[in-house]
Each structure stands twice: as C-alpha cells, then as structure tokens.
C-alpha cells in the first residue's frame, strides 16, 4: 500500500509529530558541510506543478536532492490544459516513467486526490491544491513554532493561534487549522465577513475551538501566534474587498496593533508577502517575525515528507541488518 500526503485533515497527533520529529533531524543535515545523505539514492521524484511557484518547487527540489533522489521538475502552465491533455493523461504519462513520488501543485481543489486514485505505485504529495490544502506549508509552520516555543520551555499545544486575512481562499490556513485543532489549540479566524465567513467557525471544522472575529483588535487579544495571510489584488475585482487600502486600514497586522493587543505574540506568513497590505514592514522584519526560519524549515520538512513516503514505495519484506 502506497502512502500519500494529501492533506493535514485526518492526520493523527502522532502522525503530525512524526513528521515534525523527522524534520527536526533533517534540520541538522541541512546545517552540515555536506548537506546530502544517500537515503533516497536510486529513487525518482517528479515535481509536477500545474501552477507557477518558485519557493515551493525549489524547496521540494532541494529536499529531494539532499536525500540523493533524482528529481525532475515539470512545470505545466494552465495553457496546456487548453492544448487538450487532461490531468489524468499527464499523470499517467509521468507514472509510466516509474517515479516513486509525485509532488503535485494544482490550481484546482482535489486534483491530487483525483490523481492519487489512479496511481498504484507512486506516492502523491500535495504541494498545494486550489483553496483546499497545503500540508507541507502547515508542517513547516508547525516546526517553526515548535523551535520557537522550545526556547520558551513551551510545546506546540495549548496555544492561541489567529489567522488574519483571506482565510476563504487560503489553502495554508485550512491545513494549519486542521493541525492546530488536532493539537488541541484555540484557533481564531480574523477578517472581514466576505473573506472569513462565519460558517467557517463551527460548520466547516465541526468544533467550537474555531472562532471568527471581524474585529482585528478583538481577535488579536492574547494570541500567542499570528498567522498573516496573503491578500491578492484579484479579490478587489471579485468584490471581496472594496479596495486594498480599505482592507489594510482595517486588517493590516502592524507592530502598533500587536504591541497593544498581543504583545507576546510571534508572527508567521506563508509568503510571498504584500508589505503594507496584510503585514507591515516593521512586523515582517521585527523581532516577532519567524518568517525567515519558515523558509529554512521548508527544506527540512519536505525532506521528512519525502523520506517517510518514499519508504512505502516498493516496500518489501524486512531483511536482516546488523
């Protein structure tokens, strides 16, 4: 049975910790002079991106290479969909090259789930699907938080985490919400009604541990972690916000607001940032920001995911080792 990582929803607490513990070891590997281990020698990883992405693609690519796997990057713009090849055809073509892991980014929610149903010997890693999930980003955020709170003699549990901004369109938010709920944390969704529908609270996640705040100040109060989400210009055209100025006046995460309402909080952002729109420069570059560590941890987390999944591909009986 081939394992996939399609989302954080449904992962148990121990599975989440397994990814984090494993990633922790790979942080050490990434700090060595020789940043490469032979673990996945002879394995093939195909990174197939149906949506442009620089940081996630390069992060997966480096992760695979540091594990000695052969990595191939296939970027397929949405234009090829117009050319006529279906997702299934593309995926089957790639599978006939016998990759062990298929890392997939797609603009449509559920695309990796669909692909995984037609793959029998390839592990699928969801590198972001539409507005659904982005599990490796959630894991790297958790790893970053874990490292930070370890210095405060705290763990990942019992935290108050607030997501500020365009939760409606954010796959990072969905994956992270599931993770924090599994860890037993309090989750707040902060933003205007159009982007943070009240249904999101209980209806979507089935728990009272998620609460919606339309008021930034009230939402920030007492938070340990602030997750600032990317605000895209298109939202203005789609009538989700009147304009970006209006949005940022009400919802920009600034040092002034944090100092007043969540003085002990730290801030993360999945990137790329729109400075001055959803996050102010003084926060992004200030002492609360863990944004740089997030990028470093991205490689370690993806190494952990590739390592744990590639193991399951072509698994045979246990042989002696001593």
């Amino acid at each position, binding site marked *: 049975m081939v394992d996939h990582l399609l989302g954080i929803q449904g992962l148990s607490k121990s599975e989440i910790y397994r990814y984090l513990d494993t990633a922790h070891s790979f942080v050490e590997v990434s700090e060595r002079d020789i940043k490469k281990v032979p673990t996945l020698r002879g394995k093939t990883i195909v990174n197939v991106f149906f949506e442009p992405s620089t940081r996630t693609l390069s992060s997966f690519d480096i992760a695979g290479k540091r594990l000695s796997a052969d990595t191939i990057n296939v970027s397929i713009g949405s234009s090829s969909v117009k050319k006529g090849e279906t*997702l299934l055809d593309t995926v089957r073509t790639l599978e006939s090259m016998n990759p062990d892991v298929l890392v997939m980014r797609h603009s*449509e*929610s*559920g695309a990796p789930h*669909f692909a995984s149903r037609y793959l029998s010997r390839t592990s699928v890693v969801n590198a972001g699907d*539409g507005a*659904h999930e982005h599990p490796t980003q959630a894991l790297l955020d958790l790893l970053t938080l874990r490292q930070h709170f370890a210095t405060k003699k705290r763990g990942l549990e019992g935290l108050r985490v607030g997501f500020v901004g365009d939760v409606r369109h954010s796959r990072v938010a969905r994956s992270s919400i599931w993770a924090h709920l599994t860890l037993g944390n309090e989750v707040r969704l902060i933003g205007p009604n159009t982007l943070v529908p009240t249904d999101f609270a209980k209806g979507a996640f089935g728990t009272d541990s998620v609460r919606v705040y339309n008021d930034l100040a009230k939402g920030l109060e007492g938070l340990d972690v602030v997750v600032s989400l990317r605000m895209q210009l298109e939202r203005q055209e789609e009538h989700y916000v009147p304009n970006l100025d209006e949005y940022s006046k009400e919802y920009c995460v600034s040092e002034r607001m944090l100092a007043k309402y969540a003085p002990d909080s730290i801030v993360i952002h999945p990137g790329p940032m729109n400075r001055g729109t959803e996050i102010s420069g003084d926060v992004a570059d200030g002492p609360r920001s863990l944004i740089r560590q997030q990028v470093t941890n991205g490689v370690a987390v993806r190494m952990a995911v590739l390592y744990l999944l590639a193991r399951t591909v072509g698994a045979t009986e246990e042989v002696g080792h001593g």
Partner: protein
Amino acid sequence: MAKARPVVIHGGTLIDAASDRDGEFDLLIEDGKVKAIEKPGVLKEHAEAEHIDAKKQWVMPGCIDLHVHLREPGEEWKETVQTGAEAAALGGFTSICCMPNTKPANDSAEVTRFILEKAKAAGASRVLPIGAISMERKGKQLAPYSELAKAGCVAFSDDGDPVADAGLMRRALEWCLMLGLPLSCHEEDRNLSCGGCMNESPRSLRLGLKGFPGVAEDVMIARDIELARFTKGKVHICHVSTARGVELIRRAKNDGINITCEVAPHHLLLDDSCCETYDTAFKMMPPLKDNEDIAGLIAGLKDGTVDAIASDHAPHDRDSKLVEFSRATVGILGLQTSLPLLIEMSAEGVLSRRRMVELLCSGPAKSFDLPYGRLSVGSDADVIVVDPNRTWRFAEEDIRSKSKNSPFVGRDLKGLAVHTFVGGRHVVVNGRLASEMALNTK
C-alpha cells in the same frame, strides 16, 4: 401494416391519480387506445387478445419526463434520440421532453423535425422536443416560437443557461402566452453562482471548492414569479433544488400565478456530502444540497407544490468526468433510475403511492398540458406494468444510454417496468426491448 392484436392486462393493481383509481382493474388496449377498464373478470371474453398476467404488479399510466438531454444533434457519442428513447421505455417513461441544448440548438423547425424523425425511427418512447427561448440559447434574440410550436415543440427553455435578460424573458412569456405553451426555466443568477461547482456551505469552504449558493437559484425563481404575475404567462421551474425555492413557488401558487415546477430524484436522494471525495459522479447543476433543502423539497412533494419529478437525464462520456472536479461536466443519467428510486421513496413511506404516480404521470402532463399521463377509456394507450417488489442491482450493462454516468451503478434498486406500451405499441416486453428480442429470434 397488420393490425396489432388487442392486449388485456389482467390481475394487476391499477394506479392512476388522474382518474383517482387504485385497485384491481383489468385493462384492454386496442387500436393504440385504452379501450376498456373493468373490474376483474369482465374482459375475459377477449379470447383473440394477448393476455398479460399482472398479478402482484402495478398497472400505471406511462411516466412522463419533462426534462431530458438527448444530445442529438451534435453530441451523438453521448446519447442519441434512439438510445435515449429506448432508455426511457426501459425506465417506464412513455414520453420524454428533450431540452434544446443540442448542437445546433433547437431554435428552428428543422432541428425540431430532425429530432421527431429520429424519434419516429427509433420506435420507442414518445419524444417531445422543447424549443429554445432565445436564438442559439444565447439570451439575445427571441426564438421563432410559432414556427417551433407548429413543428412540434411542447415548451421552451434555454436550460443549461439561465435567461439573464429580464426584458427578453418578459417578451418570451408574452409570446408564449398566445401559444398556450410554458417556459421551462433554468434558474440561476450567474453573478451569484459565479462558477461555483458545489453547494456553497461549510463543506464547500472546507473542501476549497467554489460554492454555488442556493440564493443564486432563489432570486431567479423570484424574478420569474413576478414576471409570470405581470405577464400572466406560464412558467415552469426546472430542477428546483432549494427549500426557499419551493417556498417561493408555494406562495406564488397561492397567489394564483400560472406556475409549475419539477424536482430531480438525485436532489432528493443525494446530498452535498457526496462531494467530499471530489468524485465528479456527484457533480450536478444545480449542485446537490444539504438536508435542510432536501427536507424542503420533500415537503413540497407532499403538499403538492411540486408538480413533477423530472430526471434531468444528462448523459456524459467518461472522459468528460475523468478530470478535476471544477472542470468536470455536470449531471447524471436518470431515465432508468427515476421510477425505481421513487418506488423506493414510496415504499419507505416518504410519499404515498398515489402521489408518486401523480408526480410521474399526471403532474408532468398537467405542467406542459400534455394529453398523456392518465388511464381512461379512449386515451392513448401509454401504459406500463411495474413489478414493485423486484429488487435488482443496477449494473453498467443495464444502462441503455450511450453514456454510463450514473452514481447509482452498483446500487440495489426496487421496482422495474416489465412492460411498456407507447400508444398501444408493446415496446418493452418482460423488461426487455421488443425490438431487440425480434432481432435475437431471427
């Protein structure tokens, strides 16, 4: 052509909502008409007739489906008039109304006549074409309603697309009022549905699929109710899927507005949790709803607000479903599953038997003012014999349609049309097409 032998169906339970019959009656079919309906034993002397023993079975008027897509002309790999009409006969439907979203659209007498010729050649169920409301269904220019009506169209619709232009809708209603024909309306405000591919709900938010809010349907129903009130034209609302929609129609009926509506079986039996695995078999238009809406639809079925069950039979080839959820085609087959699914609902006590027959026969007939859907002496012999206790597993091989897109494949169904008479022609014999049996015996 030799005169067909008369047929006596005896021993069955005759259920006909139009004549308010539900009991043991024998029925005589002769010269394409229902010649007699009598108490058991009376019709025995017809020794020359073919006798069908319908013991423990139901004898019903043939069902009428107001909403099917036959794909011909233009997409014959999905369905043809022939395969659609045959699927209908096997499913117990003796009349089906086919939507004009073919290629080209049915906006001229040529296309209407083409469909009718194909239907005649098929020799299965009656095919009653629906003409387009606007030329090429583009919502810009009225279609030639009188020409289409003379060629044989029984209603008009731009189904698949809403009529966005209220002004055009008003004039269409005014024209069709003169012809006495209804406009069958696909209700959707595209600025609200906005490319949504599943019911907008906490679930769609969680799955990250673009939501189609129920209100996109409701506001258009409300608009067309007001236009019907204003023009006195006849409006029929297609595939109502929301509780609010039913409530709006209920009030309109109370106000005396000339309005009818239909509900599709899948909107009653499946809910939006089916989308949980991104399975495109469950992608519909309008999308599957939650339990609250389903309860509203069922209330409408019970109290008579809903006039008809219509399958929205929408054949699609496998490839068009084997894609990302948001890019998949919408709809499912319905002709061969509607009757069994309704029988199941009636067996479970959701609907009375009489009401079920009404929703499948006289209700749709009344909605489009068709002379079918009833069993009375002198009426066209559109008759079916149904074995309500037959339990069978619906398999892909059972599907007569060219396409196989039914989420009910593999499900156990209850009830099967074992005989179908269309205008007295014995089209389905013992659950099989007569045309095929003739071929096999050669």
